[in-house]
């Protein structure tokens, strides 16, 4: 392990660490634009220049490996300062500096560097007119990515992303020198299944995401660590939200799963979290729907549940381990009902981890693995139909999205024959057949853990308060348990349930709720670093 000094701070780093990462470990920030920890080092932008004692020329930190005894100067070197100022002058010579109308403002590496390291002080001797790329200023490259080539700093991160990570080779340089610009290969639409990541890695506002563009200023957003609900891979995300509205998902670094990437499908599920069609708990009477306050609901529902001799419950691979545990404990063990989790594959998804290996989705469900670990019976479409075909005094569907079959008229017919309780967030055909409808909160308003298909237990945190009277499912289950007289199950936070999991389930043994969110990166630069 080489030991070196950076700006007077000693640090020991693993063999092969480059000077940017070594400096980070030493608590020194070396600026960079073209470097990205999960992409090949190309040394193009030249902002990361550092002085190494004994070397006549400045070196680029991104492409220099730390060596034992190296003495590196970054912020403390006058030569480095001058060189970086020159690089900024070059970069800004043709940069439009339209930050006020640029959607990247607030999360732009160029802006950050200009403001922090350079203190916003600039003297440029430039008397010329800027070069522009007429026609490439707001061009739709593909379904999700908009290009403004004038802002491009030619760092090639986007190109390298499509070459090395998504492997579509969709983006390329065209032309040469200062006229070089980014285009899709052969001029085809940029419909890479990971296309929005190209905008993520773009350090400036040259590539932006159409869905998010101009919807919210970056600095207004708060970010909450969470997990993508799109498939069983379980990519780590930030839910970016403001005033109870979810605006986007951005990748949260996890070398073992998604490095710093998200697929477009998963990423653009973000907006769907804002949808809350069911806002009040209600009961169907002969005259029509009756809204009830929650306390009433549990009292009346408990009577219905107690009256039922046979009980069947459809849980979901979208439910957290804690919710599944409560459902299993309450419905299967205490009430002796039948409990199943439906399985479906959905569209196959794939993701590249930090070692550049592809991971493939095992199902469309983010927590099928958790249901399996809890020993809950899983059923395929046919099994689900058969399960619903049998008679029961009461049917409980905890998530009408649990399987596409639940949205078919056949399923509606099957559950209609007996009283049915449905916990739901968005409108679903099954609600026609329901006797009770309970508003459940979205992922953004919930907390708990999921198990990824690679077996990693991952926690998601509460980003927003649930709209209307919606409640997270774990809370609904806990309060129902209390109404049924099982006070021991009436938890007030899912972490209590998690503790039971740790104590009772071998595959959860030794886990700690508090460390399951993964590394919490909060500083802005870190966010850029990861996405």
């Amino acid at each position, binding site marked *: 392990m080489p030991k070196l000094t950076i700006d007077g701070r000693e640090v020991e780093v693993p063999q092969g660490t480059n000077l940017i990462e070594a400096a980070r470990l030493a608590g020194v920030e070396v600026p960079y634009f073209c470097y990205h920890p999960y992409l090949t080092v190309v040394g193009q932008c*030249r902002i990361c220049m550092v002085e190494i004692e004994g070397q006549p020329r400045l070196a680029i930190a991104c492409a220099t490996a730390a060596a034992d005894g190296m003495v590196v100067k970054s912020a403390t070197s006058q030569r480095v300062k001058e060189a970086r100022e*020159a690089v900024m002058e070059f970069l800004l010579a043709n940069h439009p500096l339209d930050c006020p109308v640029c959607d990247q403002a607030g999360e732009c590496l160029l802006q950050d560097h200009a403001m922090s390291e350079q203190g916003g002080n600039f003297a440029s001797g430039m*008397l010329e007119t800027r070069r522009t790329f007429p026609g490439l200023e707001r061009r*739709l490259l593909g379904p999700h990515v908009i290009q403004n080539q004038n802002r491009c700093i030619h760092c090639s991160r986007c190109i390298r992303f499509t070459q090395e990570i998504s492997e579509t080779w969709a983006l390329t340089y065209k032309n040469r020198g200062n006229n070089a610009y980014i285009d899709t290969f052969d001029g085809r639409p940029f419909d890479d299944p990971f296309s929005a990541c190209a905008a993520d890695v773009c350090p400036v506002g040259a590539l932006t995401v159409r869905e998010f563009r101009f919807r919210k200023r970056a600095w207004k957003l708060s970010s909450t660590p969470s997990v993508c609900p799109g498939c069983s891979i379980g990519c780590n995300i930030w839910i970016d939200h403001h005033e109870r509205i979810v605006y986007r998902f951005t990748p949260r670094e996890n070398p073992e799963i998604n490095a710093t990437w998200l697929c477009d499908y998963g990423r653009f599920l973000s907006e769907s979290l804002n949808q809350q069609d069911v806002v009040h708990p209600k009961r169907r009477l002969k005259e029509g729907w009756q809204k009830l306050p929650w306390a009433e609901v549990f009292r009346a529902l408990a009577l219905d549940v107690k009256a039922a001799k046979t009980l069947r419950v459809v849980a979901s691979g979208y439910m957290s381990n804690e919710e599944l545990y409560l459902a299993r404990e309450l419905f299967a063990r205490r009430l002796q009902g039948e409990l199943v989790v439906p399985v479906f594959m959905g569209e196959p998804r794939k993701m590249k981890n930090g070692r550049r290996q592809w991971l493939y989705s095992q199902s469309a469900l983010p927590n099928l693995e958790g249901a399996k670990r809890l020993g809950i019976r899983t059923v395929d479409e046919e099994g689900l139909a058969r399960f619903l075909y049998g008679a029961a005094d009461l049917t409980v569907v905890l998530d009408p999205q649990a399987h596409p079959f639940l949205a078919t008229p056949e399923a509606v017919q099957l559950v209609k024959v007996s009283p049915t309780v449905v916990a739901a967030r968005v409108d679903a055909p099954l609600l026609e057949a329901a006797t009770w409808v309970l508003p459940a909160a979205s992922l953004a308003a919930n907390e708990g853990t999921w198990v990824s298909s690679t077996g990693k237990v991952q926690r998601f945190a509460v980003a927003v308060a649930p709209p209307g009277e919606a409640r997270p499912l774990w809370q609904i289950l806990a309060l129902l348990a209390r109404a049924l007289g099982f006070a021991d199950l009436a938890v007030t936070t899912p972490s209590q349930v998690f503790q039971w999991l740790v104590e009772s389930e071998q595959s959860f043994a030794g886990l700690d709720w508090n460390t399951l969110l993964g590394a919490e990166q909060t500083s802005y630069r870190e966010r850029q670093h990861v996405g």
Partner: protein
Amino acid sequence: MESVLLRARGVANSRDITTYLQAGGWEGFKKALSMPPEAVTQEVIDSELRGRGGAGFPTGRKWSFVPKDHPGPKYLICNADESEPGTFKDREIIEYDPQMVLEGIAIASYAIGAHTAYIYIRGEFFRWAKILEEAIAQARAHGFLGKDILNTGYDLDVWVHRGAGAYICGEETALIESLEGKRGFPRLKPPFPAVVGVFGKPTVVNNVETLACLPHIMTRGARWFASIGRPRNTGPKLFCVSGHVNRPGVYELPLGVTFREIIFEHAGGIRNGRKLKAFFPGGSSAPVLTADEVDVVADFDSCAAAGTMLGSGAVIVMDDTVDMVEVGRNLAHFYAHESCGQCTPCREGSDWCLDILNRLVQGYGHPSDPDQLLRICRFASQGMTICPLGDAFSLPISSLVSKFRNEFAAAIARAKPIPPKKLPVMPWVGKDVRFGG
């Protein structure tokens, strides 16, 4: 001096292999094959041959960086991209004596243990690519290339690869990328090509002229080669003299003549009886020398001592009618066009220089321009860039500004006020043409 590299010039049927064989051709390769490869390398080290491609790196030393025990294939590349303004010597060798180039390739390949060699030839050199193809076919037919050459068990295939018209592809790592079928972007070094080159394998890139010296070193010996020229600057060298001289052309002279001899004796002096003003001693990438510096010795070390470089040996001569600001503009135009666009200082700097010089030439100079040019050049060279193209435009342009500052000052003194900037107008693209909305 006797003609070595250009001995076939003026000989009838000089390209034909029988002519070459009559002149003692392919003997050097035969001799090399009778020696262990290390001995061939040692012979070249002893000859003190330095690369003729521009950087003047000792050829034998370069070969010795190739890992000896590398298990996989190694490659030799003959750099025939010759695109440096003012340079036209490699073409001359190929035109008259392609077999000599092939023999040099064979010797170098044998020395480094390569069984495949590529000739990367400038795309516009269509005629010379054909000449090389024909020469390869002849050499193959005579058993100098192919399998089990001259019953020694040594195999060598040579392929001609045509470039697509980019100056940057003469830079060895951009050449390698281009040869691999990619965009000609120079690679970060280290690793150097001798360790990680084409297809990730150890590769030596040598210039045509460098390789053409090898048959002679093998047949006549390192001592003979080293006796030509001066210590550490040995051998014959081709000088491409162009510009305002009476007899422009390629001259073969020993390293160590002065530029005065080259320009005034061999090239016949300045045309129309005018006076020498300045000259580029080694192609457009070399800092300019003034008439006062015409006694500088034309070899690698003397040029370096004079603050310039011998480069490719292209002497571009300018008489006293030449406007040095216009020269700068001309250079900047070339380099801004040829910058690959990868790294910030060269991409932005070359184009910025061009903008300033264009403005100056059009009569809109500003007093800050010379210093601005010097600042750009300072920060686009000296290791600020990935490849030496940054230096290649910065050093000559800054030499022009410093040595002819008076001309820049005069241009500025004549200048009209700079017209107000045009704000870049963003055309409104209401509909995306490609997606119909």
